[in-house]
């Protein structure tokens, strides 16, 4: 990917931040309410979930090759977020608040796992794990199972409804924690990028920044379909697209191999 695109990639972040500021702080566009569960589902399934599966797949392959736990945690994070975003979107068609709760569970878990991955990556020289398949299974399946259980509890109203109630203390605390986790992760991955200049890390850290901005918007949202919500959704989608860019950004390494004799 060209250097110009990398420069442009930064652009949506301040735009989203400014929009969030305008909608959230100054109340601009409060009347622009557009609830659309269908659009949310489409974005969640065909963008967020699809890309999260791709990232999770490449991460687990990398884990099998290297045994590095940080890569496994990263894959688990995106998978958790993608599946819960999809499940949350589906639940929202029945009960919006419960859908938001499910979405929140995935987001905060993804934030925590991203932070763990970021810390390990930042520290460098991750150790090679053993029993790779067992660990990968425990992480991926275990995490999804756990989150699904939480979601079922939320759907069955066993967990407090305020988990998904926009503006409630619990929902805001959840969103704030998610913002914090993604922000710190983004900072750490960005620092690793500044050290390595690896384009994969460039786009991945941007993705984390965009997701953090998105959750910042969710933090301030007041109701379903409000501009802040859509700003948040847009920012999270941009984040997913940046994750995709990170997969596509295979560095063009200078080869140390000699050309075949008949070509030299």
């Amino acid at each position, binding site marked *: 990917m060209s250097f110009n695109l990398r420069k442009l990639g930064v652009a949506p972040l301040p735009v989203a931040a400014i929009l969030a500021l305008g909608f959230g702080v100054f109340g601009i566009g409060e009347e622009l309410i557009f609830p659309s569960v269908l659009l949310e589902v489409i974005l969640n399934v065909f963008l967020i979930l699809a890309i999260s599966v791709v990232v999770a797949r490449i991460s687990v*392959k990398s884990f099998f090759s*290297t045994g*590095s736990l940080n*890569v496994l945690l990263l894959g688990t994070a995106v998978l958790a977020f993608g599946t819960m975003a999809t499940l949350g979107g589906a639940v929202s068609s029945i009960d919006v608040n419960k859908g938001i709760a499910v979405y929140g569970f995935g987001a905060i878990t993804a934030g925590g796992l991203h932070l763990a991955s970021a810390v390990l990556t930042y520290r*460098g020289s991750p150790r090679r794990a053993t029993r790779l398949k067992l660990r990968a299974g425990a992480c991926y399946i275990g995490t999804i199972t756990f989150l699904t259980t939480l979601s079922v509890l939320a759907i069955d109203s066993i967990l407090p409804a305020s988990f998904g109630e926009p503006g409630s203390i619990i929902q805001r605390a959840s969103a704030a924690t998610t913002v914090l986790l993604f922000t710190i992760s983004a900072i750490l991955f960005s620092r690793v990028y500044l050290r390595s200049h690896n*384009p994969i890390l460039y786009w991945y850290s941007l993705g984390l920044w965009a997701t953090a901005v998105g959750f910042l918007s969710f933090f301030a949202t007041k109701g379903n379909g409000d501009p802040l919500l859509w700003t948040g959704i847009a920012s999270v989608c941009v984040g997913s697209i940046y994750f995709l860019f990170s997969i596509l950004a*295979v*560095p063009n390494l200078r080869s140390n191999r000699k050309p075949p004799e008949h070509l030299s």
Partner: protein
Amino acid sequence: MTSASNSPKSPVEDRVATGVEGFDNLIEGGFPRGDLILLAGHPGSGKTMFSSQFLYTGAIQYGEPGIYASFAENREAFLRNMRRANMDFESLEQKNLFRFIDFVTVKEQAIDAALATIMAEIDSLKASRLVIDSFSAMAQAFSEKIDARIVLHTVLGRMTRLSKVTTLLIAEKQLGSESLGGGMEEFVSDAVLVLTQSMERGHMRRHFDIVKMRGTGASRARLTYDITEHGIVVHPSLEAHPAARVYSERVSTGVEGLDRMLSGGPYKGSTILVMGEAGTGKTTTALQFMMRGAANKERTLYVSYEESQEELIRQALGFGWRINDHIENGLVRIASFFPEPYNIDNIFADTRKLIDEYQPTRFVLDSLTSLERAMSDDEFFRVVRRMESRFKGEGVTALVTARNTDGGLPSDFWVSSLMDVIVSLRQVESESALRRALVIFKARGLPHDTSIKEFEIGPKGIVVEEKFADIEQILGGSARRPARVQAWSDAFSGAPRQSRSGAKG
């Protein structure tokens, strides 16, 4: 004189045994009685020794008197040379079982007299066997070649057949020449045997060819022989024959993962080639194969061309396998040889004897590469093919190892077409470490797993693990991950990246 009527006749009616080890059973027990056999060969190829064994066996074992008519060597030299080979013809002379007739200085005019003398001695001794050494020397006494031909056709031919005297006619074969003797003897003779010598890989090899043998179903395959202190020993080759029976029963290789890859194990009677570089675990695989056989109460013959029995036992002990116990209870036998071109025939003879005596149901040969070094390509191929066909016919499951040092694929090993199963073991460089890969290249008639699997040589032997995940170029010896996975791993390794030009993102 010992009467022929008081001694046992030659083992097969109307057949005259030669007493040459390994030869008589190739010609239905011996020469037909009364035949004229041309024995041609290079100088020093053992013609005199062969013919002397023929006479000595006749006298000692069957009480059949014999005559040695020599146109080339005097009596004293003959008796002295034969004493060295533990054949005491002097005592046979005293018992009237042998007579040496010296015609060294015979000229043409005396040929008729010489022949008459031979006939007289045959009558006198009641001889059943005659050696004329040599017709080439006799023929030189004739000024005209036609005269030699007449003598051969009319006199010798009738003389031997009418009196039922089995006659060995020795002829010289010049080095570098294809003709035998004078070029006429083979047409008159009932049988033609040719002894030749040649240098192969720096060592003298002796070959024995049965060019012609009327009235006898003899193999026309080239044989090898040695001249030992006990006389000539012929080494018959393994006869290739179509498998008499095809087995559908499966056997275990001893490596569970390999058996799974072969959907339960190879068929009984299969020949399994395990090929790999040094240190990849070929011998360990062979030992595991043997130990599984012992556990199943099957007899295994392990023929090692590289390591001694003690070395193999020590290696097996490292895995906790007590081979000695199985040797003691007869389930395992280990034979170690170190093949070189000069001893390869003896090794084959010994191996065949072991197989015939021990009757194994499993056989290990470690390794084919050592064998290949000691023989010509043609001979090696024939040996491997005959071995494979014999084992298949007898239901012996064989595991053979071979070394490929240049990293070539098993298909590059040119006898691989004879193998039923080919397993390749490789060392793979991956992330600054050596890992081991196993792949089945061929499994005749068996559905098998074609994936490349990693294996380890653990405390209990070879353990096949999962297939290499997301790694390419394994068979090239230097495995690498697909580019995208590699890049992803590198990115999140956290290590500082060296300055690179042209990096795009």
